[in-house]
């Protein structure tokens, strides 16, 4: 960990301004990922802007019938919220499938979206990593890749995004609300929030420098039966090999987003028309163009079978 300076921001715009004017600055909320990365000098901020005191910790109804989730709502509180449990079950289930109770108590909504990949080559600073050090190469390609992406990756990076929450939010068509240093705000649909790696895997989101997340908004409830099925090597406290977030309506239509397969939560709206025909055609369309390695080819089969199990349960 490098020495750093620290301040507490008083307003979102002030937080954005503080980070914008200092290129070495970062926001800190729960710190469950950032502090670990700082200890390893994977993140080396020279200045931290603490946003915990901004009061963005409420979940409010929107005029459109949805929910506006403050950026600093803790994962535990979001998962337990009565409205979330009733109307957005996929989100509550995804949150509870992630991390541990202690981490969920600290981790925030915005921080969860911004957590960084768990690729072990990213975590080992002796190894080349374009995400950690642009242009240094990717030591994961050709290495141990059982957990890596099967679709949407590039020659520069094959990492996956580790979040469960974000997968559910992608299925729910959430939008990310932000504020910039100049006080201007914007809404970024989840579909556009996380990026594919391309040749700039170190740029992971659509956020501009200093742009600060204030909330995540969920549209009005879409009904249906909602599932979050996380498949992993042990029963708890593990990252997904594959996860399936699904909202399935009585008529068999629905939405599906996948975790554990790509650099971002993976959803192909155009493929969802296939859901009524079953998991196999649907997943074939969702993962069309997948290029798995020898070690992670099982994820393609696993995603299809997991979706099949979800659809079967939805019918039952």
């Amino acid at each position, binding site marked *: *960990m*490098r*020495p750093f300076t620290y301040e507490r921001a008083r307003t979102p715009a002030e937080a954005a301004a503080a980070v914008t004017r200092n290129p070495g600055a970062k926001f800190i909320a729960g710190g469950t990922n950032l502090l670990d990365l700082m*200890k390893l*000098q994977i993140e080396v901020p020279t200045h931290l802007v603490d946003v915990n005191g901004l009061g963005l910790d409420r979940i409010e109804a929107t005029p459109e019938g949805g929910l506006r989730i403050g950026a600093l709502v803790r994962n535990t509180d979001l998962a337990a919220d009565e409205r979330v449990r009733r109307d957005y079950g996929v989100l509550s289930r995804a949150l509870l499938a992630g991390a541990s109770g202690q981490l969920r108590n600290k981790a925030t909504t915005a921080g969860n979206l911004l957590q960084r990949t*768990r690729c*072990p*080559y990213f*975590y*080992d600073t*002796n*190894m080349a990593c374009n995400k950690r050090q642009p242009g240094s190469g990717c*030591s994961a390609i*050709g*290495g*141990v890749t*059982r957990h890596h992406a099967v679709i949407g990756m590039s020659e520069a990076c094959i990492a996956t995004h580790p979040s469960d929450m974000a997968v559910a939010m992608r299925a729910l068509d959430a939008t990310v609300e932000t504020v910039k240093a100049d006080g201007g705000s914007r809404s970024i649909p989840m579909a556009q929030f996380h990026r594919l790696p391309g040749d700039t895997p170190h740029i992971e989101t659509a956020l501009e420098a200093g742009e600060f997340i204030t909330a995540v908004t969920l549209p009005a409830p879409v009904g249906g039966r909602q599932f979050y099925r996380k*498949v*992993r*090597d*042990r*029963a*708890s*406290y*593990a*990252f997904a*090999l594959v996860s399936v977030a699904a909202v399935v309506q009585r008529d068999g239509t629905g939405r599906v987003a996948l975790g554990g397969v790509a650099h971002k939560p993976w959803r192909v709206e155009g493929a969802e028309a296939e859901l009524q025909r079953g*998991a196999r055609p649907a997943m074939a369309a969702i993962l069309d163009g997948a290029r798995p390695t020898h070690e992670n080819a*099982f994820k393609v*089969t*696993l995603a299809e*079978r*997991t979706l*099949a*199990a979800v*659809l*079967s349960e939805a019918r039952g």
Partner: protein
Amino acid sequence: MKFDTPATRNPIDQLKVIGQPLDRIDGPRKTTGTAPYAYERHDAAPNQAYGYVLAAGIARGRVTAMDTAAARRARGVLAIVTTLDVPRLEKGRMNTASLFGGPEVQHYHQAIAVVVAESFEQARDAAAMIRVDYARQPGRFDLAAEARNAKLVPGDSGEGSGAPPEDRFGDFEGAFAAAPVKLDETYTTPDESHAMMEPHATIAAWEGERLTLWTSNQMIAWGKRDVAKTLGIPPENVRLDSPYVGGGFGGKLFLRADAVLAALGARAAGRPVKLALTRPQVANNTTHRPATIQRIRLAAGRDGRLTAIAHESISGDLPGGGPETAVAQTKLLYAGANRLTALRLAELDLPEGNAMRAPGEAPGMMALEVAMDEMAERLGLDPVEFRILNDTQMDPEHPERPFSQRQLVQCLRLGAERFGWAGRNARPGQRREGRWLVGMGVAAGFRNNLLMKSGARVRLDAQGAVTVETDMTDIGTGSYTIIAQTAAEMMGVPLEKVAVRLGDSDFPASAGSGGQWGANNSTAGVYAACVKLRDEVARKLGFNSAEAEFVDGHVRAGNRAVPLGEAAGQEGIVAEDQIEYGELAKRYQQSTFAGHFVEVGVDAATGETRIRRMLAVCAAGRILNPKSARSQVIGAMTMGVGAALMEELAVDKRLGFFVNHDLAGYEVPVHADIPHQEVIFLDEVDPISSPMKAKGVGELGLCGVGGAVANAIYNATGIRVRDYPITLDKLIERLPEVG
């Protein structure tokens, strides 16, 4: 005390304190966070500085230059010692890779510098400022690829389960060729990490030429010897103190880089230095259980009796290292007139392979017990009955040499009854409960009982209190408690009157904690010292030692009874002795046995395997404390589940290192993975083992569990996986259609 004839009745047989399920006497300190582990010995030495180890970033080659200028200028830095500053250090007797010194890099994360600073953060930050230039060399990192170059070698795990390079008995090839039913399969087990909670940690302080290490080590006497050898100082100038160890599993049997670099850092800084290895360094800087490739051939008549058994294992290690002795148990577990075992070793440039809980037997049983399951199916026999049919009460290669106790059959029979084995469908893939395919598996458990010299000192004071001192360690096993129970039983005092002091090299040398030998041997050493103390007390009072009884805090003979405190007087009485073993181990084979039963559910869609329930029935001599023994066994069963289902150090075969080197990447079972465990101890006393009539259980609880899990998965799914761990990707292509 020389133990060379079977034990007769002795004070331990009273079982007033021994054999009782008592709470651990160190429990309150551990559960309240007041038991000081090595890194928390804040009061042990004044003015402690912090050390941080810089580890090599390549797997093989040389350090050509190290630029420490920026690090030396960094705030708070007190001293830096690099591997280029010192010649390669001598190796301890138990070490394969060099711990420090010289330019050569033998494996990834070998230590190449220690930075000492006023704070931990400053030391870590400065370590990252050191620029290192390497000349890389190609290495051998792929066991499967190197297997063809493997050579026959003898095996000695350092924990007693040895085997010769090749061992033949009868005519294996002839019998195998002639048999009507046979099996020839290959099984693999991966590299595994000890992944104990407490990483290796040491505080080092020099007083002149004398070095004290407050550390975390299982084997104090080995550690003292190897510290002296490595640093080139006389052993009498070295003291180790390790009263609390936060898990070891064999990872702390030996001297490691934490102790060496804390000592070098302290000498360079002129201050005591506190140092812990990082989690990635535990995986790549220290030792691990080596991967194996095991070929097993079994042959039997149609009656189900084994006629030929062959078990051959290949593993890898750094040059000068040793093999994983995965075949040792196969020499003893089942009958059969024609036998072959072989150990082969390939040279690899991965980190050092060495002992991990039940070295040899743990991975060996993972293969052998699956082979037995497969063979039972080929014979159309129930796997419990097949094992019972091939039981032997004698060492199969030495029919004149019986087992001191062998209740494998009883373990299996009782286990089958308690577990509801009769309800198992012998045809696999038949039982479905909702999304789960459900199956049951069984395996024998086997681990040798090892005898080690062990000493203790016992002091009786004027208050009638007893203090035991021995360098024995408690690595979470319950040593404190069973040693206190032993002294209380021997001296006729309540447990509260006994104080136990462990882990200090100034105390008499003990067996230490390894190879499941700690409990029996260390308490036998305390027994020996207590016998001597009883003699001293009797002699002082003019009692006939043979008639003296030690009961309720008094010593009695005839109609005289004297309180122990009064007998001790103000000066107290001290006695010291050790247990040593004679020839009994040659005349009798001493082993421990279990029946392991497991029920799993395999998700029919995803292939995720989840344990539903487990049972271990153990026959392991006298159980000194059923509560701490049970804890040992359920912990071992949990480790067996990890080995079966998830634990694997993933090797990058190009870059030569264990990639998943933290606890997010190296998964071990969490609570949710272990829903229900039951342990039954058979009533057994073994007068051949020691005056305690006890044996070990801590590794028995592991040996066989992985095989039972694998067999349960087969019973659930009909899919036989011979490559551990059995992760879902090895099942998913062969599972039934979903929905």
